[in-house]
């Protein structure tokens, strides 16, 4: 069986959930080989079926953005002739994928929400209004996959570790990170991974405490519209939509959000959609499974209170 290279995403030495999803998908296409740039606890990679683990010491390339990572993968593609390369969708994953495609003369598919055993991908396009099936036809298929595209399934992987040393060109090191300020942890679930997302828009008037209180009562992640982000009420990392995050949770609750096409692009594929908006004509109501026409400042605190009471 051919190898399938999976670029491992990690934070603070821990493998992220989207990586486990990629390993699960990789098993459909061949034998997963995890590619670790830096150092991580590799136990979960083995638990989720990595047959091989290529580790690349990042001492030399830390702080140099994506170009060196693309060089690492290009050299591994050369060495292993894999059936495919899977990367997490997201700014960094997509850039590495784009460079890798040029370097290896390969076709590229971004933002897949599913990948079948024959390499056929499913994507959601035009603000989620179309579904597209596509396939790479030249070179090594390079596919970036959105978070939550598969349920991670455990499988024993041999996890044979192999240190892979690469030569990185000086050119690849020509752009660098000169300062970095970590984002404060919110203590809430990750937006793109959460089963429930509660968001707020311009209708909050700038006070997100009611949205956050409601979110906490049902264990949800908090999101925001661009209007709320542009007003400086929430950091950009919380933005849902075309130029923010795409979320596809079990439940999405939009509060004081009108439902512009660019916002829909980031939440339209959610399983269940609920909205609270004081304007019964708001376009968001076209999408909802359940809607409340009303003032969120009245509805949310009351709902939070009732839920807390129910939970006892």
């Amino acid at each position: 069986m051919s190898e399938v290279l999976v670029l491992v995403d990690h934070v603070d030495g821990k493998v992220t959930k989207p990586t486990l999803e990629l390993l699960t998908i990789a098993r459909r296409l061949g034998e997963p080989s995890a590619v670790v740039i830096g150092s991580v606890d590799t136990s979960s990679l083995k638990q989720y079926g990595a047959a091989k683990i290529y580790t690349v010491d990042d001492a030399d390339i830390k702080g140099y953005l994506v170009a060196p990572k693309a060089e690492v993968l290009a050299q591994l593609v050369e060495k292993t002739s894999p059936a495919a390369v899977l990367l997490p969708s997201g700014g960094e994953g997509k850039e590495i994928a784009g460079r890798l495609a040029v370097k290896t003369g390969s076709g590229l598919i971004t933002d897949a929400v599913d990948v079948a055993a024959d390499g056929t991908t499913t994507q959601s396009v035009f603000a989620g209004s179309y579904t597209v099936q596509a396939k790479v036809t030249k070179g090594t298929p390079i596919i970036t996959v959105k978070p939550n595209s598969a349920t991670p399934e455990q499988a024993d992987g041999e996890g044979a570790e192999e240190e892979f040393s690469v030569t990185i060109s000086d050119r690849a090191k020509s752009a660098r990170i000169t300062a970095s300020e970590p984002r404060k942890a919110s203590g809430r679930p990750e937006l793109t991974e959460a089963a429930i997302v509660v968001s707020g828009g311009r209708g909050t008037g700038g006070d997100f405490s009611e949205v956050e209180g409601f979110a906490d009562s049902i264990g949800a992640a908090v999101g925001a519209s661009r209007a709320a982000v542009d007003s400086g009420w929430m950091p950009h990392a919380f933005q849902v939509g075309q130029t923010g995050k795409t979320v596809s949770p079990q439940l999405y609750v939009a509060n004081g959000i009108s439902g512009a096409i660019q916002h829909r692009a980031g939440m339209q594929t959610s399983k269940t959609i609920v909205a609270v908006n004081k304007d019964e004509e708001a376009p968001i109501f076209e999408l909802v499974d359940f809607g409340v026409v009303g003032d969120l400042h009245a509805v949310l605190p009351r709902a939070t209170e009732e839920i807390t009471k129910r939970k006892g």
Partner: protein
Amino acid sequence: MNIVVCVKYVPDATADRRFEDDNTVDRVGVDGLLSELDEYAVEQALQVKEKLGDDTEVTVLSVGPEQATDAIRKALQMGADKGVHVVDDAIAGSDALATSLVLAEAIKKIDHDLVVCGMASTDGSMGVVPAMLAERLDVPAVTLGSEVEVDGTTVRIRRDGDAATETIEGTLPLVLSVTDQSGEARYPSFKGIMAAKKKPVETWSLGDLGVDAELVGLSAAWSTVEETSARPPRTQGEVVTDEDGSGATALVEFLASKKFI
């Protein structure tokens, strides 16, 4: 300094976007415009020019159908100095790899120190062309900037990432991409609109660039779309009007009935 801004002509996102029978994006039947996300790129290029206050020249470059001149014209109205439009029947249906190839060859023909792109096109939305351009032009890329500063030959950006806010630097020549957080794009002024009429726009074909037509277009694509299907529209569920707390109660009932509580 010479700045090239890459702008794409895209179907209007608020119109009914659709696919053609051959599964390519319908770029003719739907009204098109300058990709809103590329307006931010034009804006940042103009701000760099204004800050330098010298003879810096901003060239807008677009690869696209005849109507893509509309996108170039809009950027000229905003204040760019001249335009280059690469148009060739053979380009239709090109994917990001082919598009980046044509763009790179065109950029090589234009004097450039700084290439500015949008964060993603509003139709394809892959967000990979800037990285591909950097790879093809053999220059660094500083991408997804929400704040841009040019200091001599150093370009510095702020990037608001998920895990951290970073400061990123590169040395010219390089490719820069900017997000929609980088600052409101200006509207063309009446003076700008009049001035744009006299600004030069060159039209280049693949032949002018020395790019083999076999390498681009739908038949040369590196991936194929096998099927496109419109997602069934969502059907509206129950909508209640809140009266003295009834909305909250109904909401909680609904969530409980779906086992979210």
